[in-house]
């Protein structure tokens, strides 16, 4: 894959967060950018595949399929307090990876396009598919 492409895309996403294109949502684009990259999966799949998985997730769980909802589900730390865009990227990644591992351990998984994914990373894909630059 195209992890390289994916990283470039992530950088573009970061550059774009300052622009006010997210109408009618209360989501935090800078935070979403940190949340929306499934670390392991992005080493295996390109952005098109990840977006496609995200859309599949959205079709399965339409009630969750919004930036705000997905952000809320993903950006809660152990105490239930939400992360913010100022939370260091590495802290968020570490936290998400821990959740992903826990998902696999507890069979909290979902099968999308045949991939057996943790619920957390499936939501990351969904969030990624909703981000304006990737739609």
């Amino acid at each position, binding site marked *: 894959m195209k992890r390289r492409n994916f990283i470039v895309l992530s950088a573009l996403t970061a550059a774009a967060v300052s622009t006010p294109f997210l109408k009618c949502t209360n989501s935090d684009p800078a935070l979403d950018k940190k949340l929306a990259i499934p670390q*392991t*999966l992005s*080493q*295996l799949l390109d952005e098109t595949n990840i977006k496609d998985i995200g859309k599949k997730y959205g079709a399965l769980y339409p009630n969750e399929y919004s930036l705000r909802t997905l952000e809320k589900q993903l950006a809660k730390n152990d105490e239930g307090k939400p992360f913010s865009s100022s939370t260091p990227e590495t802290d968020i990644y570490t936290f998400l*990876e821990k959740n*992903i*591992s826990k*998902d*696999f*351990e507890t*069979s909290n*998984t979902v*099968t999308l*396009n*045949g*991939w*057996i*994914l*943790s619920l957390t990373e499936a939501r990351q894909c969904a969030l990624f598919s909703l981000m304006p630059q990737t739609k």
Partner: protein
Amino acid sequence: MHIDARELNANSVIEGDLCIIGAGAAGISIALEWIGSPFKIILLEGGGFDYDDRVQELYSGETTGQRYYPLKSARLHYFGGTTGHWAGFCSIFDEIDFEKRDWIPHSGWPINRKDLDPYYVRAHKNLELGPYEYDWKYWQKYDAELKPMMKDESVVWNKIWQFSPPTQFGTKYRDTIVKAKNIHLYTYANVTDISANENVSAVNHVTVKNYTGKQHTVKAKHFVLACCSIQNARILLASNQQASKGLGNDNDNVGRYFMEHLEIKSGELWLTKPDPLKLYSLNYGTTKARCELAITKDQQEKNKILNGTSSLTPLLVAKKMKPMIDIWNTDDPHKNLQNLFSEFGGAIEAGKSATGDSLSKSYELFTRIEQAPNPDSRVTLDSEKDSLGMPRGTLHWVLTPLEKHSIRKIYELIGQQVGRTGIGRVRMMEYLRDEQDETWPEFTGGGWHHMGTTRMSDDPKNGVVDANCKVHGIANLHVAGSSCYVTAAAPNPTLTLVALSLRLSDRIKMLI
């Protein structure tokens, strides 16, 4: 000694102590056990020492139900049987395979793994396998590079397969059998009928024929039917002069519960870092042991699934291989074998030309799984007869939704465990993704592993043979081979059928 039954005077009467019908892995293994004993052993083989198409043709038959290989080429009909072209894959059944599992109808053997363990050890010798060691840690002592993907084996564990050279019984044991004074091997001696006494409580004699038109009679104290699953059932069903439904078939079990291993590509493993996964790799001809991914007993119980395993092949190589069901599709076993080698050749070339880490980044996951015992999956007699006047066998192979549910669940579990380790992700093939879809793709195939048809049970209503492989109600008729299996487990059947045959041999020694 060897006698060609074509050369005997017509209507000869042959007498001995033990008559073994069929000289494949089961029959030869039993015969070897009796060398040097004071007993006269008659070993009957339908073919000769080499392939003969007129003999092979006797195995032709129609198949219905699930797509299957042509019956004529699915087994070999000469001395040594199908070991003449087997691949040598061997592993032992798990304890759970013998148990009654309430989610699998008709499961549960009247014996358990401990009953077979000492015979597995002996069978290892016949099949020229390594030490009776099925823990991967044993093999790691000799090769530190054999590392498991998952150290926690509470859900997915690493089941060892060992590899026979492969031992071709026809080559390996021919001289031993022929030189043994008390073993009387008759080639071109096809059993076409088993005749019982008046009240059908014991076998009196069997009739053998060959294509010269000659017919002979064989009498013995004990008889062992050691043909393959299809032929064992066919002979019993066709022996219907005294018992209208066939010998041993008072309860309509003969021929039923035919089982195969479903062998089918099922998914892909993608790794974030290339890894040759040596513990799971097979270098044919040099690998002594390798692992397949297996599901623990607890998880089988919890998820109510069949026992199956998953083997790994570099995806680049696997993608070059057509499904076996599309390769092995003619009546000619030699042509099929050439097709197979040709496919292997292409795949090996793909492997050799792979660059960098491309071979060790992604793997095909290939399932080998038991099918649920199913009375509707069965061997019956056709109205058409073969050239010896015997009704042809027909096969109706039937699967159930449990097989597909089990494969899907196996990959969910493997996918979860792979995800947990963080080494990569697993992707299921398309045909497994819709939980409501119970159909099978065109490339669904078997492993040429014929099992069931004379299943074992303590209760004559539920089986053909008892726990000692004696046919219920017939004092001196025994069955050897995988036709006695109650369930199929995941491993290739040869090791277990040899073990079971050795156990039967010991039993007959107590009776004779």
